[in-house]
């Protein structure tokens, strides 16, 4: 956070951590696609802190900043009848408040 107004929050997840996406369906402008909600993935990289677009969409400041991650999912985890190769993946940009640690 700039100007020391708020102490920057350390990110909850690191590259390689397994995470699951919240399986929730709040109304409004959401940036996490339905097809990955409730699914298990791996943090591919930590992208940095960004203003929260789900707040910006309504004219708010977008603060506090949210950590953004790229989460890698196996295609087979996302779709029951995926017809491609086993190793195929989708990487999705997901903000921290949509993620929880997977055991």
């Amino acid at each position, binding site marked *: 956070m700039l100007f020391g107004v708020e102490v920057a929050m350390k990110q909850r997840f690191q590259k390689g951590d397994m995470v699951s996406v919240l399986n929730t369906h709040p109304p409004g402008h959401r940036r996490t696609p339905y*097809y990955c909600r409730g699914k298990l993935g791996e943090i591919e990289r930590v992208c940095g802190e960004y203003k929260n677009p789900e707040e910006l969409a309504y004219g708010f400041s977008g603060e506090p900043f949210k950590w953004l991650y790229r989460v890698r999912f196996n295609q087979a985890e996302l779709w029951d009848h995926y017809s491609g190769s086993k*190793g195929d993946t989708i990487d999705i940009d997901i*903000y921290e408040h949509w993620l929880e640690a997977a055991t």
Partner: protein
Amino acid sequence: MADEEEKHGHNHDHKGIDADAHALEHIHDHDRQFQADIEDNEPEHYELMTYAIKELLVEKGHLSVDEIRRAQEKLDSWQPSRGAKIVARAWFDPDYKQRLLKDGNEAMSDFGVDAGGAKLTVLENTEDVHNVVVCTLCSCYPRSVLGLPPDWYRSKSYRARVVIEPREVLKEFGTDIDDEVTVRVHDSLADLRYLVIPKRPKGTEGWSEDKLASIVTRDSMVGVVNPSVS
């Protein structure tokens, strides 16, 4: 004359000095199709809102019509040739490629390209991995290096299908991916923008950077085709 009356809606003599002019006047009566004008459809809600906001900004002196036009012109001047130059240098210069993969924004500044607030993330296609980019929620696209997205990229069918059956979609673009190659789809819907470095085709050994740039197409930098030497 019964047939004639049916066709034209009235009965008259087509002979004489005014016959051609008359025929033109009534040309709409015949089975001719005209291309629709842009204004033929009613403007949609957001189009109207855009016009209204633009007029207000101009009226209140915040922006001039000329500034708006210049901004549009600037956006239109962003072309895939920018991305092609960046990819060609990455092919040509391994150190540059490493910089590009590490920090796209930093590396593209060598070409005077500014991504604005977006973080340019560069993906490399290799013998083992094929990357392809989509934005399933809207049409996020690396405009600063590729210009405006093509219609197919914004279409619902591409956005819906490429995440669930990427290999079939790629096939429709003429791109067959071997089973042993991993297909990685990248759903770009936040603050990152993606640029694919396609595989450098065989037969380009010893080419100059400019010549390499000439075979890097827009679609190859989205990841739906591989560049080829024709």
